[in-house]
């Protein structure tokens, strides 16, 4: 085990090279709906239990099933209304279980990125080969069902190994060259894109995905009220929009169709989306588009700037 994963160098949030998003936007805004499949009886992982009570553990299983049966369509129609294309963090087994959902998202040109195969299969304890095969399976499944060359990764249930980001980037290159495996959502250290060190030296970027704006963190971990969640989203946006005049920022709302889509929560979420999209200088975009724009325009300058700020004692 390491003291520090070594993915990123310290990079102060002042005097960075200015990022200018397309059309003068101050904030790149993206919504990342997690569309997940949790198994009723997954195999045991020695390091993490899938459910808090003995199988069949209905409370957790059934709300997640609710998300796919009921919640997905509500969230999708709301994003349609505000002109937002989702960037889906996908449990790729869902392509097999619920292809109707995949079709609906394809019709809307939403992005699909890998969130593993099932959200009840943890990376903990996998050998490097096992994890590589799992990642490859997930990316090939997305390609087979959607034609998309998977660009991003969020590890299943946020379970990682020391190899996760390297493996994802390497499999991406192996399958799709420079178009695959270019960004990660697994790191929460910044409000702007940052270059990530990999053993392959591939150009690879962390696109901020925000744990704080995540509806599951807000509702299940922090247990906040729906209206307060809506208010936090607006306030998060206000500050990033203001700072974005100096240098472009990123705002992400990661969602789950079994959290944000409940009837008692939709109003607050809609008000927040309405608020954000009513501003002029917002680039409503996807994870891949942010990653590609950064890699094409700011990656090299960022590397140089970060390098200049690493002082030796």
């Amino acid at each position, binding site marked *: 085990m390491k003291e520090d994963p070594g993915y990123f160098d310290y990079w102060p949030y002042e005097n960075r090279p200015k990022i200018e998003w397309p059309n003068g936007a101050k904030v790149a805004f993206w919504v990342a709906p997690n569309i997940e499949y949790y198994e009723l009886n997954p195999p045991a992982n*020695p390091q993490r239990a899938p459910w808090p009570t003995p199988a069949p553990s*209905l409370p957790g299983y*059934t709300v997640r099933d609710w998300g796919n049966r009921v919640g997905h369509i509500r969230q999708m129609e709301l994003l349609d209304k505000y002109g937002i294309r989702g960037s889906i963090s996908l449990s790729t087994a869902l392509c097999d*279980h619920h*292809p109707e959902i995949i079709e609906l998202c394809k019709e809307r040109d939403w992005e699909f990125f890998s969130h593993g195969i*099932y959200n009840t299969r943890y990376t903990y304890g*996998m050998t490097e080969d096992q994890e590589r095969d799992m990642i490859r399976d997930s990316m090939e499944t997305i390609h087979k069902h959607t034609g998309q060359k998977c660009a991003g990764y969020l590890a299943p249930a946020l379970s990682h190994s020391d190899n996760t980001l390297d493996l994802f980037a390497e499999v991406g290159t192996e399958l799709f060259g420079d178009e695959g495996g270019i960004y990660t959502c697994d790191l929460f250290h910044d409000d702007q894109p940052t270059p990530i060190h990999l053993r392959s030296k591939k150009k690879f970027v962390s696109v901020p995905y925000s744990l704080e704006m995540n509806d599951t963190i807000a509702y299940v971990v922090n247990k906040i009220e729906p209206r307060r969640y809506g208010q936090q989203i607006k306030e998060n946006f206000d500050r990033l929009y203001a700072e974005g005049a100096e240098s472009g920022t990123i705002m992400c709302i990661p969602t789950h169709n079994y959290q944000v889509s409940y*009837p008692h929560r939709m109003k607050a979420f809609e008000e927040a989306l309405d608020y954000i999209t009513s501003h002029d200088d917002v680039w409503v975009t996807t994870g891949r588009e942010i990653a590609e724009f950064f890699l094409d325009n700011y990656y090299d300058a960022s590397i140089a700037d970060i390098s200049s700020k690493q002082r030796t004692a």
Partner: protein
Amino acid sequence: MTLDKAYFDYPHRSYGMDHDRYDWSMLNDRKPVEWPEGKKLALWVNVPLQFFPLNQKGEPFKVPGGMTMPYPDLRHFSLRQYGNRIGIYRFLKAFDQHGVKPTFAMNTRLAETNPYLLNRIVERGDEITCHGYHMDAIHWNGLGKDVENELIKTSLESLRKLTGQEIKGWLSPAKNESDHTPDLLAANGIEYFSDWVNDDMPYQFRTSNGELTAMPLTTETEDHFVINGNKHSEDSWVEQVCDAADFLRKEADTQGGRILALNIHPWLMGQPHRIAKLEKALEYITQIDGAWPAYAGEIRNNWISQQ
């Protein structure tokens, strides 16, 4: 620690669910339902009437709302009884004032030991469903199928005898089940149950003894979940219930009848500082245009007649 090969087998990775209890189906793909007289939003107010034993075993877990302190946990025992002595009578007044038709999910043990309360509920003529034997009688695989069958049979026979009602509905304590629970419920004359919170509308659920109807009793807006679990204020709970009602009512305009299911506990919302909040929520939802206050069994029967 490495993972063996079985961790990378995906035996259920195919169309539909990873079990065979029901068909995969998205809400918006289903035929819209029409409630009686053109009503749009069924109001299912569900009231658990519960007995939490002082000598709780806590197998396989301590039931939420149950004893948490070393024996004898008088604080929680008596506070739960408060609901059956005081809170419930505040509820009944509020229901009658606002024209609510409450469905009572009753622990059989409470019916056996509280004849006054039992008779009061029976005389009202509201629907009674079985909420298991008591709150510490949790249904799980550790019981074994035969023991669980006996538990279900005894709970239902006793409650049927005491209430004079057929008892067609079931809610497991803590919504917990074994792999056999639905099969055993169907074998013992149950027609609908409310343990699976995976839909906003009823759907048909397969068992080895014919089909049950799964009724959507959401946990997410339940008083215990919101106020005790999430620590939200009573005012926030009212706001959440009203927002949910508004949302579902609007959805019903384009997608057919919807159900607002509200599960409320007399020991919680029946407190002096909370009852006015419940009254406020009831006043709001019963005045919604197209609201249909109904018993769970009525909603179920109406729904199934349209399938």
